[in-house]
Protein backbone atom coordinates (compact mmCIF):
# COMPACT_ATOMS: atom_id res chain seq x y z
CA UNK A 1 0.00 0.00 0.00
CA UNK A 2 2.73 2.44 1.00
CA UNK A 3 4.43 1.82 -2.29
CA UNK A 4 1.29 2.78 -4.13
CA UNK A 5 1.01 6.07 -2.26
CA UNK A 6 4.64 6.81 -2.99
CA UNK A 7 4.11 6.03 -6.65
CA UNK A 8 1.05 8.25 -6.81
CA UNK A 9 2.89 11.05 -5.09
CA UNK A 10 5.85 10.68 -7.39
CA UNK A 11 3.64 10.68 -10.49
CA UNK A 12 1.86 13.81 -9.39
CA UNK A 13 5.21 15.43 -8.76
CA UNK A 14 6.48 14.59 -12.24
CA UNK A 15 3.38 15.90 -13.94
CA UNK A 16 3.35 18.94 -11.73
CA UNK A 17 6.92 19.66 -12.70
CA UNK A 18 6.02 19.33 -16.36
CA UNK A 19 2.86 21.36 -16.37
CA UNK A 20 3.47 23.97 -13.67
CA UNK A 21 5.45 26.30 -15.95
CA UNK A 22 2.71 26.20 -18.55
CA UNK A 23 0.10 26.84 -15.91
CA UNK A 24 2.12 29.77 -14.59
CA UNK A 25 2.25 31.35 -18.03
CA UNK A 26 -1.46 30.78 -18.57
CA UNK A 27 -2.35 32.36 -15.23
CA UNK A 28 0.06 35.27 -15.36
CA UNK A 29 -1.24 36.26 -18.78
CA UNK A 30 -4.29 37.61 -16.95
CA UNK A 31 -2.32 39.35 -14.24
CA UNK A 32 -2.92 43.06 -14.22
CA UNK A 33 0.41 43.96 -12.62
CA UNK A 34 3.25 45.54 -14.58
CA UNK A 35 5.84 43.16 -13.21
CA UNK A 36 4.54 39.62 -13.47
CA UNK A 37 4.64 37.41 -10.40
CA UNK A 38 2.51 35.88 -7.73
CA UNK A 39 0.25 36.68 -6.06
CA UNK A 40 -1.92 37.83 -8.96
CA UNK A 41 -3.10 41.37 -8.53
CA UNK A 42 -6.37 41.69 -10.35
CA UNK A 43 -7.53 39.94 -13.49
CA UNK A 44 -7.50 41.80 -16.78
CA UNK A 45 -7.09 41.32 -20.51
CA UNK A 46 -4.89 44.33 -20.71
CA UNK A 47 -1.81 42.47 -21.95
CA UNK A 48 -3.79 40.86 -24.69
CA UNK A 49 -4.90 44.30 -25.94
CA UNK A 50 -1.36 45.47 -25.73
CA UNK A 51 -0.30 42.42 -27.71
CA UNK A 52 -2.84 43.13 -30.42
CA UNK A 53 -1.41 46.61 -30.83
CA UNK A 54 2.21 45.48 -31.02
CA UNK A 55 3.11 45.62 -34.72
CA UNK A 56 6.36 43.73 -34.33
CA UNK A 57 4.59 40.80 -32.73
CA UNK A 58 1.81 40.79 -35.30
CA UNK A 59 4.39 40.79 -38.06
CA UNK A 60 6.25 37.92 -36.39
CA UNK A 61 3.00 36.01 -36.01
CA UNK A 62 2.23 36.45 -39.68
CA UNK A 63 5.75 35.34 -40.65
CA UNK A 64 5.44 32.27 -38.42
CA UNK A 65 2.06 31.32 -39.87
CA UNK A 66 3.15 31.68 -43.49
CA UNK A 67 6.41 29.90 -42.75
CA UNK A 68 4.60 27.10 -40.94
CA UNK A 69 2.08 26.62 -43.74
CA UNK A 70 4.71 26.63 -46.50
CA UNK A 71 6.94 24.16 -44.66
CA UNK A 72 3.91 22.03 -43.89
CA UNK A 73 2.85 21.81 -47.53
CA UNK A 74 6.35 21.03 -48.77
CA UNK A 75 7.25 18.54 -46.04
CA UNK A 76 3.90 16.75 -46.29
CA UNK A 77 4.01 16.43 -50.07
CA UNK A 78 7.58 15.18 -50.11
CA UNK A 79 6.93 12.99 -47.08
CA UNK A 80 3.99 11.25 -48.73
CA UNK A 81 5.96 10.61 -51.90
CA UNK A 82 8.97 9.34 -49.97
CA UNK A 83 6.83 7.04 -47.82
CA UNK A 84 5.11 5.65 -50.92
CA UNK A 85 8.45 4.89 -52.53
CA UNK A 86 9.82 3.28 -49.37
CA UNK A 87 6.79 1.12 -48.64
CA UNK A 88 5.37 0.24 -52.04
CA UNK A 89 8.45 -0.11 -54.19
CA UNK A 90 11.71 -1.95 -53.87
CA UNK A 91 14.83 -0.35 -55.22
CA UNK A 92 18.57 -0.39 -54.68
CA UNK A 93 19.89 1.50 -51.69
CA UNK A 94 16.55 1.72 -49.94
CA UNK A 95 18.14 1.49 -46.49
CA UNK A 96 20.54 4.30 -47.29
CA UNK A 97 17.71 6.51 -48.54
CA UNK A 98 15.71 5.79 -45.39
CA UNK A 99 18.61 6.70 -43.12
CA UNK A 100 19.25 9.82 -45.14
CA UNK A 101 15.62 10.93 -44.89
CA UNK A 102 15.51 10.36 -41.14
CA UNK A 103 18.92 11.92 -40.47
CA UNK A 104 17.65 15.46 -39.70
CA UNK A 105 16.19 14.00 -36.49
CA UNK A 106 19.49 12.39 -35.55
CA UNK A 107 21.82 15.30 -36.34
CA UNK A 108 21.90 18.02 -33.65
CA UNK A 109 19.87 20.96 -34.85
CA UNK A 110 22.75 23.41 -34.49
CA UNK A 111 24.92 21.27 -36.72
CA UNK A 112 22.13 20.99 -39.29
CA UNK A 113 21.60 24.75 -39.15
CA UNK A 114 25.26 25.61 -39.61
CA UNK A 115 25.60 23.01 -42.33
CA UNK A 116 22.78 24.37 -44.41
CA UNK A 117 24.07 27.90 -43.87
CA UNK A 118 27.55 27.00 -45.10
CA UNK A 119 25.99 25.22 -48.06
CA UNK A 120 23.98 28.31 -49.00
CA UNK A 121 27.03 30.50 -48.58
CA UNK A 122 28.90 28.17 -50.94
CA UNK A 123 26.10 28.60 -53.48
CA UNK A 124 26.36 32.38 -52.93
CA UNK A 125 22.76 32.51 -51.77
CA UNK A 126 21.84 35.04 -49.11
CA UNK A 127 19.81 34.15 -46.06
CA UNK A 128 16.18 34.53 -47.01
CA UNK A 129 12.64 33.51 -46.23
CA UNK A 130 13.07 30.77 -48.84
CA UNK A 131 15.98 29.37 -46.87
CA UNK A 132 13.82 29.30 -43.75
CA UNK A 133 11.07 27.42 -45.58
CA UNK A 134 13.61 24.98 -46.99
CA UNK A 135 15.25 24.43 -43.62
CA UNK A 136 12.00 23.96 -41.74
CA UNK A 137 10.82 21.51 -44.40
CA UNK A 138 14.01 19.48 -43.90
CA UNK A 139 13.44 19.42 -40.14
CA UNK A 140 9.80 18.36 -40.50
CA UNK A 141 10.25 15.85 -43.32
CA UNK A 142 11.41 12.87 -41.20
CA UNK A 143 8.36 13.14 -38.97
CA UNK A 144 5.98 13.15 -41.91
CA UNK A 145 7.82 10.22 -43.51
CA UNK A 146 7.75 8.18 -40.29
CA UNK A 147 4.07 8.78 -39.59
CA UNK A 148 2.87 8.19 -43.16
CA UNK A 149 5.17 5.19 -43.61
CA UNK A 150 3.75 3.54 -40.50
CA UNK A 151 0.22 3.98 -41.75
CA UNK A 152 0.99 2.89 -45.29
CA UNK A 153 2.62 -0.32 -44.08
CA UNK A 154 -0.68 -1.15 -42.41
CA UNK A 155 -2.75 -0.64 -45.57
CA UNK A 156 -2.86 -3.98 -47.35
CA UNK A 157 -1.96 -3.86 -51.04
CA UNK A 158 -5.20 -5.81 -51.73
CA UNK A 159 -7.14 -2.56 -51.86
CA UNK A 160 -4.90 -1.05 -54.49
CA UNK A 161 -4.78 -4.29 -56.46
CA UNK A 162 -8.57 -4.54 -56.38
CA UNK A 163 -8.86 -0.97 -57.64
CA UNK A 164 -6.36 -1.64 -60.42
CA UNK A 165 -8.18 -4.78 -61.49
CA UNK A 166 -11.43 -2.82 -61.67
CA UNK A 167 -9.92 -0.44 -64.18
CA UNK A 168 -8.32 2.38 -62.19
CA UNK A 169 -4.89 3.49 -63.41
CA UNK A 170 -2.02 3.99 -60.96
CA UNK A 171 -2.77 7.69 -60.40
CA UNK A 172 -6.52 7.15 -60.09
CA UNK A 173 -5.84 4.34 -57.63
CA UNK A 174 -3.68 6.63 -55.53
CA UNK A 175 -6.24 9.40 -55.31
CA UNK A 176 -9.34 7.25 -54.88
CA UNK A 177 -7.95 4.52 -52.61
CA UNK A 178 -4.48 4.97 -51.16
CA UNK A 179 -4.69 8.64 -50.28
CA UNK A 180 -8.09 8.50 -48.53
CA UNK A 181 -6.94 5.46 -46.55
CA UNK A 182 -3.78 7.16 -45.35
CA UNK A 183 -5.44 10.53 -44.77
CA UNK A 184 -5.34 10.34 -40.96
CA UNK A 185 -1.57 9.89 -41.11
CA UNK A 186 -1.22 12.68 -43.66
CA UNK A 187 -3.20 14.89 -41.31
CA UNK A 188 -1.04 13.97 -38.34
CA UNK A 189 2.13 14.44 -40.36
CA UNK A 190 1.04 17.84 -41.60
CA UNK A 191 0.22 18.94 -38.06
CA UNK A 192 3.62 17.74 -36.88
CA UNK A 193 5.27 19.69 -39.66
CA UNK A 194 3.37 22.86 -38.87
CA UNK A 195 3.96 22.66 -35.14
CA UNK A 196 7.66 21.90 -35.57
CA UNK A 197 8.08 24.93 -37.79
CA UNK A 198 5.94 27.15 -35.60
CA UNK A 199 7.89 26.25 -32.46
CA UNK A 200 11.37 26.15 -33.92
CA UNK A 201 13.90 28.64 -32.59
CA UNK A 202 17.43 27.18 -32.69
CA UNK A 203 17.74 26.69 -36.42
CA UNK A 204 15.57 29.73 -37.15
CA UNK A 205 18.06 32.02 -35.43
CA UNK A 206 20.75 30.80 -37.81
CA UNK A 207 18.71 30.97 -40.97
CA UNK A 208 16.50 34.04 -40.73
CA UNK A 209 17.51 37.11 -42.70
CA UNK A 210 18.32 40.08 -40.50
CA UNK A 211 15.20 41.93 -39.48
CA UNK A 212 12.89 39.00 -39.90
CA UNK A 213 11.35 37.62 -36.73
CA UNK A 214 9.20 34.59 -36.08
CA UNK A 215 7.15 34.38 -32.91
CA UNK A 216 9.75 32.35 -30.95
CA UNK A 217 12.65 34.62 -31.98
CA UNK A 218 10.51 37.66 -31.20
CA UNK A 219 9.80 36.35 -27.70
CA UNK A 220 13.46 35.53 -27.28
CA UNK A 221 14.37 39.06 -28.32
CA UNK A 222 11.86 40.63 -25.98
CA UNK A 223 13.11 38.49 -23.08
CA UNK A 224 16.56 39.90 -23.46
CA UNK A 225 15.32 43.30 -22.40
CA UNK A 226 12.82 42.43 -19.71
CA UNK A 227 10.16 39.92 -18.80
CA UNK A 228 7.17 41.85 -20.03
CA UNK A 229 3.74 40.48 -19.08
CA UNK A 230 2.98 40.82 -22.76
CA UNK A 231 5.13 37.73 -23.27
CA UNK A 232 2.85 35.80 -20.96
CA UNK A 233 -0.10 36.82 -23.07
CA UNK A 234 1.79 35.79 -26.21
CA UNK A 235 2.69 32.52 -24.51
CA UNK A 236 -0.98 32.00 -23.75
CA UNK A 237 -1.86 32.52 -27.41
CA UNK A 238 0.85 30.15 -28.58
CA UNK A 239 -0.13 27.43 -26.13
CA UNK A 240 -3.74 27.70 -27.20
CA UNK A 241 -2.66 27.51 -30.79
CA UNK A 242 -0.30 24.56 -30.58
CA UNK A 243 -2.69 22.63 -28.35
CA UNK A 244 -5.89 23.77 -30.01
CA UNK A 245 -5.02 22.87 -33.58
CA UNK A 246 -4.27 19.18 -32.92
CA UNK A 247 -7.23 18.81 -30.57
CA UNK A 248 -9.50 20.34 -33.16
CA UNK A 249 -8.01 18.11 -35.83
CA UNK A 250 -8.45 14.99 -33.71
CA UNK A 251 -12.04 15.98 -33.05
CA UNK A 252 -12.68 16.49 -36.74
CA UNK A 253 -11.03 13.18 -37.57
CA UNK A 254 -13.22 11.40 -35.03
CA UNK A 255 -16.31 13.12 -36.40
CA UNK A 256 -15.46 12.04 -39.94
CA UNK A 257 -14.60 8.48 -39.03
CA UNK A 258 -17.80 8.11 -37.03
CA UNK A 259 -19.84 9.26 -39.97
CA UNK A 260 -18.01 7.33 -42.63
CA UNK A 261 -16.60 3.98 -41.65
Amino acid at each position, binding site marked *: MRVWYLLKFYTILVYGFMFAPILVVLLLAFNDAQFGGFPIQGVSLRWFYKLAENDAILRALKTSLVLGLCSMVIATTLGILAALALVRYSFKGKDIVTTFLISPILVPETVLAVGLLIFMRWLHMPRSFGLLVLGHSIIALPFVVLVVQARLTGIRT*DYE*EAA*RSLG*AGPVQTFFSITFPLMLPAVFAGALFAFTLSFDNITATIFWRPSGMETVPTQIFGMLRNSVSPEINALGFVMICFTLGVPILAAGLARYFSKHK*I
Partner: protein
Amino acid sequence: MAQVELRNLVKNYGVVNAVKHANIVFQDGAFTTLLGPSGCGKTTILRMIAGLETPSAGDICINGQRINDVPIHKRNLGLVFQNYALFPHKTIGENIAFGLKYRGVSKSDAVAKVKNALDIVRLPGIENRYPAQLSGGQQQRIALARAIVIEPDVLLLDEPLSALDANLREEMRIELKAIQHRIGVTSVFVTHDQSEALAMSDKIIVMSAGNVEQIGTPDEVYNRPTSEFVARFLGASNVVGSRVEKRDEISVHVTTQDLGSLLLPAANCTGLGAQATQAKIIVRSEKVILNPDPAKGVPAVIKAVDYQGQLARYFITVGSTDLQAMALIAQAPLQVGTQVGVCIDPADCIALSQ
Protein backbone atom coordinates in the same frame (compact mmCIF):
# COMPACT_ATOMS: atom_id res chain seq x y z
CA MET B 1 -16.37 -14.35 -72.48
CA ALA B 2 -12.96 -15.70 -72.97
CA GLN B 3 -10.51 -18.54 -73.03
CA VAL B 4 -7.26 -18.13 -71.12
CA GLU B 5 -4.15 -19.94 -72.14
CA LEU B 6 -0.84 -20.22 -70.34
CA ARG B 7 2.09 -21.20 -72.52
CA ASN B 8 5.28 -22.37 -70.81
CA LEU B 9 4.66 -19.95 -68.00
CA VAL B 10 7.53 -19.62 -65.51
CA LYS B 11 7.89 -17.52 -62.40
CA ASN B 12 11.04 -17.35 -60.32
CA TYR B 13 11.43 -15.36 -57.13
CA GLY B 14 15.19 -15.25 -56.87
CA VAL B 15 16.13 -18.90 -56.45
CA VAL B 16 12.57 -20.05 -55.74
CA ASN B 17 10.84 -21.58 -58.77
CA ALA B 18 7.26 -20.73 -57.85
CA VAL B 19 5.86 -21.88 -61.20
CA LYS B 20 7.68 -24.23 -63.56
CA HIS B 21 6.59 -24.32 -67.19
CA ALA B 22 2.84 -24.29 -66.79
CA ASN B 23 0.84 -25.11 -69.91
CA ILE B 24 -2.81 -24.71 -69.10
CA VAL B 25 -5.95 -23.85 -71.04
CA PHE B 26 -8.84 -22.38 -69.08
CA GLN B 27 -11.89 -23.14 -71.22
CA ASP B 28 -14.36 -20.44 -72.13
CA GLY B 29 -17.18 -20.32 -69.60
CA ALA B 30 -15.75 -23.12 -67.48
CA PHE B 31 -15.09 -23.14 -63.77
CA THR B 32 -11.49 -24.26 -63.45
CA THR B 33 -9.80 -24.86 -60.11
CA LEU B 34 -6.13 -24.67 -59.28
CA LEU B 35 -5.74 -27.17 -56.46
CA GLY B 36 -2.64 -27.95 -54.48
CA PRO B 37 -0.96 -27.73 -51.11
CA SER B 38 0.27 -24.48 -49.63
CA GLY B 39 3.14 -22.88 -51.51
CA CYS B 40 2.70 -24.84 -54.74
CA GLY B 41 2.30 -21.70 -56.85
CA LYS B 42 -1.48 -21.37 -57.27
CA THR B 43 -1.67 -17.75 -56.19
CA THR B 44 1.36 -16.92 -58.30
CA ILE B 45 -0.38 -18.23 -61.44
CA LEU B 46 -3.54 -16.31 -60.61
CA ARG B 47 -1.60 -13.10 -59.98
CA MET B 48 0.24 -13.46 -63.27
CA ILE B 49 -3.07 -13.81 -65.14
CA ALA B 50 -4.32 -10.73 -63.29
CA GLY B 51 -1.20 -8.78 -64.16
CA LEU B 52 -0.11 -8.33 -60.55
CA GLU B 53 3.08 -10.33 -61.15
CA THR B 54 5.28 -10.37 -64.23
CA PRO B 55 6.10 -13.83 -65.61
CA SER B 56 9.79 -14.72 -65.74
CA ALA B 57 9.15 -16.51 -69.04
CA GLY B 58 6.27 -17.73 -71.16
CA ASP B 59 3.06 -16.21 -72.43
CA ILE B 60 -0.42 -15.53 -71.14
CA CYS B 61 -3.08 -15.32 -73.82
CA ILE B 62 -6.72 -14.37 -73.63
CA ASN B 63 -8.69 -15.42 -76.70
CA GLY B 64 -5.41 -16.00 -78.47
CA GLN B 65 -4.14 -12.48 -77.78
CA ARG B 66 -0.89 -12.26 -75.84
CA ILE B 67 -1.53 -10.01 -72.83
CA ASN B 68 1.79 -10.14 -70.99
CA ASP B 69 2.36 -6.44 -71.63
CA VAL B 70 -1.19 -5.23 -71.03
CA PRO B 71 -1.34 -3.36 -67.70
CA ILE B 72 -3.72 -4.66 -65.02
CA HIS B 73 -6.32 -1.97 -65.38
CA LYS B 74 -6.74 -2.66 -69.09
CA ARG B 75 -7.24 -6.42 -68.76
CA ASN B 76 -10.91 -6.43 -67.79
CA LEU B 77 -10.64 -9.15 -65.18
CA GLY B 78 -12.68 -9.59 -62.02
CA LEU B 79 -10.63 -10.31 -58.93
CA VAL B 80 -11.95 -11.72 -55.66
CA PHE B 81 -9.55 -11.87 -52.72
CA GLN B 82 -9.41 -14.06 -49.66
CA ASN B 83 -9.80 -11.01 -47.42
CA TYR B 84 -12.48 -9.43 -49.63
CA ALA B 85 -10.52 -6.16 -50.00
CA LEU B 86 -13.65 -4.02 -50.00
CA PHE B 87 -12.71 -0.35 -49.85
CA PRO B 88 -13.42 0.53 -46.21
CA HIS B 89 -14.00 4.21 -46.89
CA LYS B 90 -16.62 3.65 -49.56
CA THR B 91 -20.20 2.47 -49.20
CA ILE B 92 -21.30 -0.85 -50.64
CA GLY B 93 -22.89 1.02 -53.55
CA GLU B 94 -19.68 2.96 -54.23
CA ASN B 95 -17.63 -0.21 -53.92
CA ILE B 96 -19.65 -2.03 -56.54
CA ALA B 97 -19.89 0.99 -58.83
CA PHE B 98 -16.13 1.59 -58.62
CA GLY B 99 -15.24 -0.34 -61.75
CA LEU B 100 -18.16 1.10 -63.73
CA LYS B 101 -16.69 4.63 -63.52
CA TYR B 102 -13.79 3.58 -65.70
CA ARG B 103 -16.04 1.97 -68.28
CA GLY B 104 -18.00 5.04 -69.23
CA VAL B 105 -21.21 3.82 -67.62
CA SER B 106 -23.60 6.68 -66.89
CA LYS B 107 -24.68 7.43 -63.31
CA SER B 108 -28.22 6.14 -63.79
CA ASP B 109 -27.08 2.97 -65.56
CA ALA B 110 -24.56 2.41 -62.77
CA VAL B 111 -27.30 2.60 -60.14
CA ALA B 112 -29.31 0.00 -62.03
CA LYS B 113 -26.31 -2.27 -62.51
CA VAL B 114 -25.37 -2.04 -58.83
CA LYS B 115 -28.92 -2.93 -57.88
CA ASN B 116 -28.87 -5.87 -60.25
CA ALA B 117 -25.53 -7.10 -58.92
CA LEU B 118 -26.83 -6.90 -55.35
CA ASP B 119 -29.87 -8.92 -56.41
CA ILE B 120 -27.61 -11.57 -57.93
CA VAL B 121 -25.71 -12.00 -54.67
CA ARG B 122 -29.01 -11.86 -52.76
CA LEU B 123 -28.21 -8.78 -50.69
CA PRO B 124 -30.61 -6.19 -52.08
CA GLY B 125 -30.93 -2.69 -50.69
CA ILE B 126 -27.70 -2.33 -48.73
CA GLU B 127 -26.09 0.24 -51.05
CA ASN B 128 -25.61 2.79 -48.28
CA ARG B 129 -23.92 0.62 -45.71
CA TYR B 130 -20.18 0.44 -45.13
CA PRO B 131 -18.15 -2.78 -45.45
CA ALA B 132 -17.37 -2.82 -41.72
CA GLN B 133 -21.10 -3.09 -41.04
CA LEU B 134 -21.39 -6.43 -42.86
CA SER B 135 -20.58 -9.99 -41.81
CA GLY B 136 -17.74 -11.91 -43.45
CA GLY B 137 -20.09 -13.84 -45.71
CA GLN B 138 -21.90 -10.69 -46.77
CA GLN B 139 -18.61 -8.93 -47.48
CA GLN B 140 -17.54 -11.82 -49.67
CA ARG B 141 -20.78 -11.58 -51.64
CA ILE B 142 -20.19 -7.87 -52.14
CA ALA B 143 -16.66 -8.57 -53.31
CA LEU B 144 -18.14 -11.00 -55.83
CA ALA B 145 -20.76 -8.45 -56.91
CA ARG B 146 -18.05 -5.84 -57.39
CA ALA B 147 -16.06 -8.21 -59.57
CA ILE B 148 -18.94 -9.40 -61.76
CA VAL B 149 -20.68 -6.06 -62.25
CA ILE B 150 -17.99 -4.99 -64.71
CA GLU B 151 -18.78 -8.06 -66.82
CA PRO B 152 -15.18 -9.28 -66.79
CA ASP B 153 -13.73 -11.60 -69.40
CA VAL B 154 -12.37 -13.79 -66.65
CA LEU B 155 -13.21 -14.06 -62.96
CA LEU B 156 -10.20 -14.82 -60.75
CA LEU B 157 -10.88 -16.06 -57.23
CA ASP B 158 -8.07 -16.65 -54.71
CA GLU B 159 -9.36 -18.82 -51.88
CA PRO B 160 -12.45 -16.63 -51.58
CA LEU B 161 -14.14 -18.93 -49.07
CA SER B 162 -11.29 -19.73 -46.73
CA ALA B 163 -11.96 -16.84 -44.35
CA LEU B 164 -15.52 -18.04 -43.74
CA ASP B 165 -16.56 -20.54 -41.09
CA ALA B 166 -17.28 -24.11 -42.13
CA ASN B 167 -21.07 -23.98 -42.49
CA LEU B 168 -21.08 -20.70 -44.34
CA ARG B 169 -18.31 -21.94 -46.59
CA GLU B 170 -20.42 -24.85 -47.83
CA GLU B 171 -23.42 -22.62 -48.34
CA MET B 172 -21.35 -20.04 -50.22
CA ARG B 173 -19.69 -22.58 -52.48
CA ILE B 174 -23.03 -23.78 -53.76
CA GLU B 175 -24.15 -20.22 -54.29
CA LEU B 176 -20.90 -19.11 -55.90
CA LYS B 177 -21.06 -22.00 -58.33
CA ALA B 178 -24.70 -21.23 -59.13
CA ILE B 179 -23.90 -17.57 -59.85
CA GLN B 180 -20.95 -18.52 -62.03
CA HIS B 181 -23.12 -20.97 -63.92
CA ARG B 182 -25.84 -18.37 -64.42
CA ILE B 183 -23.61 -15.62 -65.80
CA GLY B 184 -21.33 -18.10 -67.56
CA VAL B 185 -18.12 -16.24 -66.88
CA THR B 186 -14.81 -18.06 -67.36
CA SER B 187 -13.60 -18.60 -63.80
CA VAL B 188 -10.27 -19.51 -62.27
CA PHE B 189 -10.59 -20.59 -58.68
CA VAL B 190 -7.72 -21.21 -56.30
CA THR B 191 -8.06 -23.49 -53.30
CA HIS B 192 -6.17 -26.04 -51.27
CA ASP B 193 -9.42 -27.67 -50.11
CA GLN B 194 -10.03 -30.82 -52.15
CA SER B 195 -13.72 -31.11 -51.34
CA GLU B 196 -14.28 -27.52 -52.45
CA ALA B 197 -12.49 -28.28 -55.70
CA LEU B 198 -14.44 -31.50 -56.32
CA ALA B 199 -17.76 -29.87 -55.55
CA MET B 200 -17.38 -26.74 -57.66
CA SER B 201 -15.16 -27.37 -60.62
CA ASP B 202 -15.72 -28.26 -64.22
CA LYS B 203 -12.03 -28.96 -64.39
CA ILE B 204 -9.35 -29.35 -61.75
CA ILE B 205 -5.67 -28.63 -62.17
CA VAL B 206 -3.71 -30.36 -59.44
CA MET B 207 -0.39 -28.73 -58.68
CA SER B 208 2.58 -29.56 -56.52
CA ALA B 209 5.74 -27.53 -55.99
CA GLY B 210 5.30 -25.37 -59.07
CA ASN B 211 4.42 -28.28 -61.36
CA VAL B 212 1.11 -29.20 -62.91
CA GLU B 213 0.48 -32.78 -61.75
CA GLN B 214 -2.78 -33.56 -63.50
CA ILE B 215 -5.56 -31.79 -65.38
CA GLY B 216 -8.99 -33.34 -65.54
CA THR B 217 -12.60 -33.32 -64.49
CA PRO B 218 -13.30 -33.86 -60.78
CA ASP B 219 -14.24 -37.45 -61.56
CA GLU B 220 -11.02 -38.04 -63.50
CA VAL B 221 -8.63 -36.63 -60.94
CA TYR B 222 -10.44 -38.42 -58.13
CA ASN B 223 -10.92 -41.82 -59.73
CA ARG B 224 -8.07 -41.89 -62.24
CA PRO B 225 -5.11 -40.19 -60.56
CA THR B 226 -2.02 -40.26 -62.71
CA SER B 227 0.40 -39.90 -59.83
CA GLU B 228 0.72 -40.95 -56.24
CA PHE B 229 0.70 -37.29 -55.24
CA VAL B 230 -2.72 -36.70 -56.80
CA ALA B 231 -4.08 -39.91 -55.32
CA ARG B 232 -2.94 -38.94 -51.86
CA PHE B 233 -3.91 -35.28 -52.09
CA LEU B 234 -7.49 -35.98 -53.16
CA GLY B 235 -8.84 -38.05 -50.33
CA ALA B 236 -7.22 -40.88 -48.43
CA SER B 237 -5.63 -43.47 -50.67
CA ASN B 238 -3.68 -46.61 -50.01
CA VAL B 239 -0.50 -47.17 -51.95
CA VAL B 240 0.82 -50.72 -52.05
CA GLY B 241 3.94 -51.97 -53.77
CA SER B 242 3.63 -54.88 -56.22
CA ARG B 243 5.43 -56.89 -58.83
CA VAL B 244 4.19 -57.11 -62.43
CA GLU B 245 3.84 -60.75 -63.36
CA LYS B 246 2.20 -60.70 -66.74
CA ARG B 247 0.49 -58.15 -68.93
CA ASP B 248 -1.50 -58.19 -72.16
CA GLU B 249 -3.98 -55.90 -73.95
CA ILE B 250 -6.88 -56.49 -71.60
CA SER B 251 -5.31 -57.01 -68.19
CA VAL B 252 -2.25 -56.78 -66.00
CA HIS B 253 -1.43 -59.40 -63.43
CA VAL B 254 0.40 -58.17 -60.34
CA THR B 255 1.29 -59.78 -57.03
CA THR B 256 1.49 -57.97 -53.74
CA GLN B 257 3.19 -59.04 -50.58
CA ASP B 258 0.12 -59.31 -48.35
CA LEU B 259 -2.93 -58.85 -50.56
CA GLY B 260 -2.24 -61.73 -52.89
CA SER B 261 -2.33 -61.38 -56.65
CA LEU B 262 -4.60 -58.99 -58.48
CA LEU B 263 -5.78 -58.95 -62.09
CA LEU B 264 -6.19 -55.30 -63.05
CA PRO B 265 -8.06 -54.23 -66.22
CA ALA B 266 -5.61 -52.66 -68.67
CA ALA B 267 -7.62 -49.44 -68.60
CA ASN B 268 -6.47 -48.96 -65.00
CA CYS B 269 -2.85 -49.31 -65.94
CA THR B 270 -2.32 -46.46 -68.40
CA GLY B 271 0.06 -44.89 -65.87
CA LEU B 272 2.24 -47.99 -65.85
CA GLY B 273 5.26 -47.94 -68.11
CA ALA B 274 5.34 -50.66 -70.78
CA GLN B 275 8.55 -52.18 -69.43
CA ALA B 276 7.76 -51.73 -65.75
CA THR B 277 8.41 -54.69 -63.51
CA GLN B 278 7.30 -52.97 -60.32
CA ALA B 279 3.97 -51.17 -59.87
CA LYS B 280 2.41 -48.97 -57.23
CA ILE B 281 -1.15 -50.10 -56.65
CA ILE B 282 -3.44 -47.30 -55.57
CA VAL B 283 -6.76 -48.01 -53.97
CA ARG B 284 -9.08 -45.52 -52.31
CA SER B 285 -9.90 -46.19 -48.69
CA GLU B 286 -13.64 -46.36 -49.40
CA LYS B 287 -12.95 -49.17 -51.89
CA VAL B 288 -11.35 -51.33 -49.24
CA ILE B 289 -14.24 -53.51 -48.08
CA LEU B 290 -14.09 -55.05 -44.60
CA ASN B 291 -15.98 -58.24 -44.06
CA PRO B 292 -16.84 -59.17 -40.43
CA ASP B 293 -15.99 -62.76 -41.29
CA PRO B 294 -12.18 -63.08 -41.58
CA ALA B 295 -12.61 -66.12 -43.76
CA LYS B 296 -14.21 -64.04 -46.50
CA GLY B 297 -11.24 -62.12 -47.84
CA VAL B 298 -7.65 -61.58 -46.75
CA PRO B 299 -7.48 -61.80 -42.93
CA ALA B 300 -6.68 -58.50 -41.24
CA VAL B 301 -6.94 -56.88 -37.83
CA ILE B 302 -8.28 -53.44 -36.91
CA LYS B 303 -5.64 -51.27 -35.24
CA ALA B 304 -7.53 -48.02 -34.77
CA VAL B 305 -10.91 -46.50 -35.50
CA ASP B 306 -11.73 -42.92 -36.40
CA TYR B 307 -15.48 -42.68 -35.91
CA GLN B 308 -17.19 -39.79 -37.72
CA GLY B 309 -20.88 -40.50 -37.27
CA GLN B 310 -22.25 -41.70 -40.57
CA LEU B 311 -18.88 -43.13 -41.54
CA ALA B 312 -15.85 -44.63 -39.89
CA ARG B 313 -12.24 -44.80 -40.90
CA TYR B 314 -10.43 -48.00 -39.93
CA PHE B 315 -6.69 -48.40 -39.75
CA ILE B 316 -5.99 -52.04 -40.39
CA THR B 317 -2.97 -54.29 -40.78
CA VAL B 318 -2.75 -57.10 -43.28
CA GLY B 319 0.41 -59.04 -42.60
CA SER B 320 3.01 -56.27 -42.61
CA THR B 321 0.96 -53.84 -44.75
CA ASP B 322 -0.97 -50.96 -43.19
CA LEU B 323 -4.18 -49.96 -44.93
CA GLN B 324 -6.98 -47.49 -44.41
CA ALA B 325 -10.59 -48.41 -45.01
CA MET B 326 -13.53 -46.05 -44.97
CA ALA B 327 -17.06 -47.38 -44.58
CA LEU B 328 -20.54 -45.98 -44.27
CA ILE B 329 -21.98 -47.45 -41.12
CA ALA B 330 -25.46 -47.70 -39.74
CA GLN B 331 -24.69 -48.94 -36.24
CA ALA B 332 -21.72 -48.86 -33.91
CA PRO B 333 -18.32 -49.13 -35.59
CA LEU B 334 -16.23 -52.29 -35.42
CA GLN B 335 -14.03 -52.51 -32.36
CA VAL B 336 -10.26 -52.21 -32.28
CA GLY B 337 -8.71 -55.67 -32.37
CA THR B 338 -11.52 -57.22 -34.40
CA GLN B 339 -10.47 -59.77 -37.00
CA VAL B 340 -11.89 -58.95 -40.42
CA GLY B 341 -11.60 -60.09 -44.00
CA VAL B 342 -10.35 -57.54 -46.54
CA CYS B 343 -11.82 -57.54 -50.04
CA ILE B 344 -10.48 -55.34 -52.81
CA ASP B 345 -11.99 -55.35 -56.28
CA PRO B 346 -9.09 -55.13 -58.79
CA ALA B 347 -11.32 -52.90 -60.94
CA ASP B 348 -11.02 -50.26 -58.18
CA CYS B 349 -7.24 -50.35 -58.26
CA ILE B 350 -4.93 -48.16 -60.32
CA ALA B 351 -1.41 -49.21 -61.23
CA LEU B 352 1.34 -46.60 -61.59
CA SER B 353 5.04 -46.91 -62.35
CA GLN B 354 7.30 -46.86 -59.33
